[in-house]
């Protein structure tokens, strides 16, 4: 857990005054409820708040900061997939393409992304201020024991369907939601499909074939033979596989 206040990065890079000012306003209003933040100058802003402040943050942004446009609300499961990346084919490992040659050990550990975090699940939402043209990404840890966060529907009625989706896909309870019921899935569906430990059955039945090295057309081969510097695989073509979706 990082500091209670925001660790504003004061590097020599480009300065994003509008987002910086917004971040300071949020931090001063919400105080200790802002756990961490991340600012990419000119690109985007991430703010992580405590689980208890999740609903009040929405109210503050909507009423006081005039973030009137509700963009989306979702969640992230940070658990490293127990099935690997489902892409660890023997072919790729032999070629050193499995994407994990330098961080194999890290793959076993949970690494939460921007603005940090300690829990397995995080809420993720985004709202937009049309007057200033700024959007802000909001995150909050979902407590592992209760798996419950507050609802946003009081301030953004559009969050209702998004929260139903989070509830059915991740199994996260939304306290105060007007009607949590299945949105996409059949009523008797069991399990939470977007959790990392929910297997994608099609991938288990028919494993990833690997980045198949497709032979190039003769003329391409001749053209590529001229520079003759490539030691790697000859094309980037990746063979698509069917039987899913």
């Amino acid at each position: 857990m990082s500091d209670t206040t925001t660790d504003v990065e004061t590097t020599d890079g480009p300065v994003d005054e509008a987002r910086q000012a917004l971040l300071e306003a949020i931090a001063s209003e919400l105080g200790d409820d802002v756990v961490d933040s991340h600012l990419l100058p000119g690109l985007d802003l991430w703010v992580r708040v405590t689980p208890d402040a999740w609903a009040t943050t929405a109210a503050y942004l909507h009423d006081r900061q005039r973030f009137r446009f509700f963009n989306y609300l979702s969640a992230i499961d940070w658990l490293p997939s127990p099935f690997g990346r489902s892409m660890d084919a023997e072919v790729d490992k032999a070629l050193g393409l499995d994407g994990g040659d330098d961080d194999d050990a890290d793959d076993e550990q949970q690494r939460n992304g921007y603005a940090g975090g300690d829990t397995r699940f995080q809420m993720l939402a985004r709202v937009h201020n049309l007057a200033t043209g700024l959007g802000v990404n909001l995150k909050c840890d979902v407590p592992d024991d209760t798996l419950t966060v507050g609802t946003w529907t009081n301030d953004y009625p559009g969050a209702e369907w998004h929260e139903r989706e989070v509830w059915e896909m991740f199994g996260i309870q939304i306290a105060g939601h007007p009607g949590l019921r299945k949105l996409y899935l059949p009523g008797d569906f069991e399990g939470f499909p977007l959790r990392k430990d929910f297997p994608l059955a099609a991938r288990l039945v028919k494993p990833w074939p690997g980045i198949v090295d497709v032979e190039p057309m003769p003329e391409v081969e001749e053209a590529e033979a001229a520079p003759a510097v490539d030691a790697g695989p000859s094309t980037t073509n990746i063979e698509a596989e069917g039987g899913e979706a």
Partner: protein
Amino acid sequence: MTAISDRRQLAYVAAQAADARVNVELEAEGMTLNIGPQHPATHGTLRIVARLDGEQVIAAEPVMGYMHRGYEKLTEVRSYPQVTTLVNRIDWLGSFANEVPFILACEQLMDIEAPPRAQYIRTILFELGRISHLTLFLGDLGVQLGALTPVFYAFRDREHVLNQIEAATGGRFHPNFDRIGGVKDDLPAGWIAETKQVLGKIRNFLDTIEDLLFGNEIFTARTRGIGLIPADVGLSYGLSGANIRGSGVDWDLRRDNPNGLVYDQADWKVVTHPDGDAFARCWVRLQEVRESISIVDQLLDSMPSGPIMAKVPRIIKVPEGEAYVETENPLGVMGYYVVSQGGLTPFRVKIRTASFNNMSITPWLLKGTYVPDVITILASLYFILGDIDR
């Protein structure tokens, strides 16, 4: 005497009670009307369960998921270049537009910028997709209100645009043409002149449609003042695209945050309408096609030469990080929140689609409307089921 009056009284009370029972049944139960899942007005398989009191809708609940394909899960087991194949199928009428925000998000994470010519080609194809998408909307709109003629014109003229998309990308509906770092191919010879001819045909089509539909008394009567969305309500539900511009909100990502597409190179304007009713939304779309034609026309004239691919590694690995990129798709704002932990596949992709938010207002919007207006309102919100269900 008394006995008779007692009997009468009893009979009267019994009759009243029976009436009351019937009334209670009628009032409390209402009637439940199922619209869909197979209904021409649903662009796929949407089911709307409406509780009616006579002709009036008391409550309406959209039921979806009939086309849920789980793209967010599937992206986690695909390499980055493969994802574009998947997301093509989200909004199947504006397929190329689905690829662009995802590719832009990856480019942002990899810190790559596509060369200018690739940006032009992207923008042109993006707008051609919008033209074909909304051309079909304008024809389909007539069908849903009982006018059969416009749709034949729409299908005829949309085909010209699809031919141009096919000539450039190889696919009529699913181009799968955008690549991290640029586009797959350059435009074929003679394409620019042909496209200009096609734009002329679409201009004629729009004039026809404006006469046929927007000048039609019945059309006006059935859309004016129907399905009113105040701007602040629309924003809190996350409505975007023509739906929110039809409520007078002057916001278009193409102008306000073009994100690596070259809309600033053309002279065009954002169309809004203050009324917020079904007519306003349809009218905004009609004018938007005209603006799109103008954008494509200007970009075709000012196209720079040069490479169409930036230098990208053969095997694409995206560095660790998170990025959210959104673009103004034909249906509204579409964005991808891409989480990468390094490696060949995304760790998590959250797909923000326009129709999902646009439809989430329907329970609020349909309350108190009349059954024939339900179809008008759904048509004016314009959604694609694949875009709702993902």
